[in-house]
């Protein structure tokens, strides 16, 4: 693990060599797990107002609600660490959803009814995510285009294409009739644990290990901090960045599998509205948009934070504008906390 990641949190206390002791508030604000404390505090605050939030089924709903979001956010974390950004993830979710569904659907799918339908369908999802990610990465590294432009164009193009593709495969606006076995990935459970959770755990743990314990992970942080220095130090910068986009694409595709499964439908507008949520979650967690800083655990915290707030607002039956304003307020609040944190560090 690159130390820089935690450095913002620890540098001050460390250089002080334990000479200075900080107040509990300062320590709390400096903690790199602040977002978890905030989530807990918020949860405890709304509990008396909507007691339903603490019921077992509500908690399990919250858990399953956050999983697909978490998986995309994990992919995004990789891209942000190298100072990139991937705005195409939601369109990958949508596009993979309809293409994958068109392979599996019982009403006229390419492999509809065949026992191969599900494995081939899943493979389609992953391939689409990987290929689009690869294409994004290719444009950003080999052609030197800015990631925001590449992926923004991808977003617009793929969203359109997803709708166009659907009209070619379905009378309605979406593709239904998905095999039971596939739907179970998004809905079912094994050993009392939702399948989606198994999937998210697998993705999360591999991502965590990849970032923290491998050469590839260290390269990514190095590229994020100083790309030129990384290049001169023999880091295959282009290839590494390309892979972050592939990872992001594949994560989006996995999220798409979960979303598509839970809605039992391949739809071309899937996930369209969650783009900013994804990026906000990662950044609230503490990953820097400027690159070089980020952790999977932080992202988990960021997603959890957003989902808890979202759920509470849903349970409160809040109107749309309240939801918007509260979300904005919360993000601003997170920003203020982060700024305070910087101040304290600077003060030394």
């Amino acid at each position, binding site marked *: 693990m690159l130390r820089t990641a935690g450095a913002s949190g620890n540098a001050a206390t460390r250089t002080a060599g334990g000479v200075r002791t900080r107040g509990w508030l300062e320590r709390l604000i400096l903690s790199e797990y602040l977002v978890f404390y905030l989530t807990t505090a918020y949860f405890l605050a709304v509990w008396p107002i909507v007691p339903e939030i603490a019921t077992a089924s509500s908690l399990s709903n919250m858990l399953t609600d956050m999983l697909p979001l978490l998986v995309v956010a994990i992919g995004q974390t990789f891209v942000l660490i190298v100072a990139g950004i991937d*705005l195409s993830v939601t369109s990958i979710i949508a596009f993979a959803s309809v293409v994958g569904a068109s392979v599996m659907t019982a009403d006229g799918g390419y492999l509809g009814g065949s026992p191969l339908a599900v494995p081939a369908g899943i493979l389609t999802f992953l391939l689409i995510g990987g290929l689009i990610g690869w294409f994004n990465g290719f444009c950003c590294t080999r*052609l*030197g285009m*800015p990631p*925001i*432009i590449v992926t*923004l*164009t991808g*977003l*617009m193009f793929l969203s*359109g*294409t997803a*709708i*166009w593709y659907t*009209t*070619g495969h379905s009378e309605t606006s979406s593709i239904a009739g998905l095999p039971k076995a596939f739907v179970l990935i998004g809905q079912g459970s094994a050993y009392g644990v939702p399948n989606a959770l198994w999937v998210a755990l697998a993705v999360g743990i591999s991502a965590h290990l990849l970032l923290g314990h491998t050469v590839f992970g260290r390269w990514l942080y190095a590229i994020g901090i100083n790309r030129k220095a990384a290049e001169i130090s023999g880091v295959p910068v282009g290839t590494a960045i390309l892979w972050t986009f592939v990872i992001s694409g594949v994560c989006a595709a996995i999220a798409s599998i979960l979303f598509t499964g839970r809605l039992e439908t391949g739809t071309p507008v899937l996930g369209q509205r969650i783009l*900013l949520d994804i*990026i*906000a979650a990662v*950044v*609230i967690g503490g990953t*820097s*948009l*400027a690159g070089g800083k980020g952790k999977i655990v932080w992202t988990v915290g960021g997603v959890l934070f957003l989902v808890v707030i979202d759920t509470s607002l849903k349970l409160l039956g809040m109107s*749309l*504008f*309240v*939801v*918007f*304003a*509260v*979300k*904005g*307020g*919360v*993000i*601003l609040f*997170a*920003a*203020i906390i*982060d*700024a305070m944190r*910087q101040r304290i560090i600077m003060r030394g």
Partner: protein
Amino acid sequence: MSGTAGRRLALVVLQNAPLIAFVVVLVIFASLSDRFLTLGNFTNIVTQSSHIAIMAIGITFVLLTAGIDLSVGAVMYVGVAILALYLGDLPVVVSFPLVALIGLALGAVNGFFVVQMRGLHPFIITLAMLFILRGAALWMTDTRMVFVAEPIMSLGRTSYLGVPWAIWMFAAVFALAWIVLRETPFGRQVYAVGQDPVAAGKAGINVPLVLFAVYCICGLCAALGGLVSIAQVAAASSTFGFQKEFPVIAAAVLGGTSLFGGRGGVIGTVFGAILIQTVENGLVMTNANLHHRW
């Protein structure tokens, strides 16, 4: 090793990508529709791109300082909502400057937080503003569609010297921005701050003030863009300005303004905005609609 010529060519192509894309798009659509290359249609394209272009000019200032403003679409909506709901009875010469001021003030809020919370990316601050302002506008309008009065709508149809009002606005904002960026101390300091804020501070530039000012300008331009847009489309539903930040940023970046600050300018931005609109226009002109009936 050979291929330098090729590499040079590639470089030239990349540096002039917006222009080349522009020409390619023109040629494609011109060959598909004989009405595409008419003066009338071109006026049409520029008119329709003017609100995006005005907002993109504003955001160019912010991008030049290596910042970003995601709240432009929301500022646009808030301004128009206030115009339609509370300022509808005032004459245009009063209500429009008021809305512009509101935009400036909202930009100032962005700027305030950006300056106060240095070390935190403006992305997150303006994202928060995006949510808060959209929420506020939805609350004001009760999510209903709002309408503007006939004088404003007729403004949207007015032409001076055969050139639509929107294009005049666009041209004025562009000319002013161009002069400010190139020929004023402030403009050059914007570039300096974007290139290296630490060095700018050491050179005695008031970095916080420059940052604050660019967000004010961006807010102002967003409100102006809203006015130009509403004068044309006459009514604003709850999706007014929704996700406008994407084409607006895209226009600036397509025009060669770097997201990492210090590079670019408003001329490119204008091209970027028009290019985006040209594609949309061309698609309709050639009836090559994604939603074509199958």
